[in-house]
């Protein structure tokens, strides 16, 4: 972000030069380069990476947030031990996160791929279908929660159609801890499916058409071609979709938070982190330990993503 006055002096000093791997920069050029890279990197590291490592460090401490940093006590693995043994919300949260991941991986993501397969055929009305499936993506998860509340609330659409909207006897879709997570998964999938479809469609459009043709000449059915030719050739997109599926399942927060603050059957790790900071009691150690657990679970998909994206650069 150096001012443009430096440009003039730089331009004046420069002698004609070829690209010679970083040895031919003027002083100004070097300063500009350092600024161009250093400024943004500093901001990113300062506000993302350093806090991330602080969280990991804090997960081994006890701190109720009152008083200065000298009130932080080192407790080793005690937070983790307590979370695994006595924290009652932990088990349901893990169960729900696993359920979320399983539901996305086994139902929502494949459905998105199948939809993409049919949309790619460019059947009649394809534009309309595409628009319909993309729509949920532009809605925020908070609004999504509100929108679906009208469908599943006690006197909402579903119960009205089923003919019982009384607060006493009607099915409480969001209130029943055995049912509500399934409803939430349905809602989350409403959004996820369109996203997967979009990414997959873009991938399929980039497939060399001659692959299709070659398979068609061999007399393969469209579905066979998709399974044996197109799908394997879309490895990069597949990896990205796997990563997005896992990461979104781990991050989940907004939807359950707007529905019931993530309680009573809707516990999620992401919400527990938040609860331990802003809830009735501030337990920074517990919150950090939970966040670190989330981080540990995210490492594999993050590495997978980096490997897939950067392997050709090296």
């Amino acid at each position: 972000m150096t001012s443009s006055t430096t440009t003039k002096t730089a331009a004046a000093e420069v002698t004609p030069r070829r690209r010679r791997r970083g040895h031919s920069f003027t002083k100004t050029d070097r300063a500009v380069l350092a600024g161009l890279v250093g400024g943004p990197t500093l901001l990113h590291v300062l506000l993302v990476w350093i806090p991330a490592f602080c969280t990991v460090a804090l997960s081994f401490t006890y701190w109720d947030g009152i008083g200065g940093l000298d009130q932080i006590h080192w407790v080793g693995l005690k937070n983790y031990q307590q979370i695994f043994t006595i924290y009652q919300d932990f088990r349901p949260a893990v169960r729900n996160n696993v359920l979320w991941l399983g539901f996305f991986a086994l139902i929502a993501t494949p459905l998105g791929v199948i939809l993409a397969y049919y949309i790619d055929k460019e059947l009649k009305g394809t534009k309309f279908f595409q628009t319909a499936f993309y729509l949920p993506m532009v809605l925020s998860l908070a609004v999504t929660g509100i929108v679906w509340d009208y469908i599943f609330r006690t006197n909402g659409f579903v119960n009205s159609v089923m003919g019982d909207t009384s607060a006493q006897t009607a099915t409480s879709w969001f209130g029943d801890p055995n049912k509500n997570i399934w409803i939430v998964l349905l809602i989350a999938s409403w959004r996820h499916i369109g996203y997967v479809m979009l990414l997959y469609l873009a991938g399929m459009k980039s497939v060399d058409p001659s692959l299709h043709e070659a398979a068609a000449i061999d007399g393969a059915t469209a579905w066979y071609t998709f399974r044996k030719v197109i799908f394997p050739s879309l490895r990069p997109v597949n990896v990205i979709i796997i990563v997005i599926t896992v990461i979104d399942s781990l991050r989940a927060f907004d939807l359950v938070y707007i529905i019931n603050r993530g309680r009573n059957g809707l516990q999620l790790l992401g919400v527990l982190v938040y609860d331990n900071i802003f809830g009735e009691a501030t337990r920074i150690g517990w919150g950090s330990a939970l966040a670190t657990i989330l981080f540990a679970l995210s490492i594999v998909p993050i590495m997978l993503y980096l490997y897939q994206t950067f392997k050709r650069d090296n």
Partner: protein
Amino acid sequence: MVTGKSSKVGNSIAISILFVFSLVWMFPIFWTLLQSLRPYGDVLKFGSVSWPHHLNLHNYWTALVQSQMWRYFINSFEVAVPAVVITLFLASMVAFVVSRYSFKFNVALLMLFTAGNLLPPQLVFIPIFRLYIHVWVPNFINGDGVLYNTQLGLILIHVALQMGFATFVLSNYLKTIPKEISESALVDGASVWKHYYVVILPLLRPALASLGVLMTTWIYNDFFWSVALLSSGDKRPITAALSNLQGEFFTDYNLLAAGATLAFIPTLIVFFTLRKQFVSGLTLGSTKG
């Protein structure tokens, strides 16, 4: 299954299924719209699934004027616009350097940004929150004198996080643009800054537009950070402020429907007018080259 006739039958079945699916998909949005147009008393009397006896914009008027939702729109813009502009500017600088010069740190740097973008926000927010309640800011930014509960703080975290994604996307985009264009600039003896500002930045325009549309939508839709970093309801952007319409003991659900509709209307407008940019913004990051 390869004969023309059976595939035609198959296609019509597929079309019908897709048609039913897409109606189901749009139904919740349509339903919310309908609720927003009905007075609360009407629904109380006849139930939510009933012939709408009265349809009017009264709930919208109440939401916008009485509940002062227009303020939250302003909040949203005050956060999203600077955040997106700064993000794009910073990300384009890094993308320029890593894609036009061969430094040893290039790949490592890109990996740092990309991975940073994939971290769960929960991992970042505890220290950020603790930091923000201690960082001093002048009184004209926040009467409390700290960064916590300011839109500036929210903008900063959005910039830091979104920059990862934007840098990654922009550098991928730049890699598809032939280096010869840059080389002619270098032969002309342009400085690094000129190379960036005059040669590269204009080339990036289509990618910046797509990213801009996408990130504006994302930041506009953000809920987590707004709730975590803004304690006063009146500073929150619209998406997070919706919970202000939910009363503790009583909620006028038709009013809330109008509020939710108002909140998603801008994103729908963006989607329908700039759909190409929105979609390409999403896919720029996923398909390489």
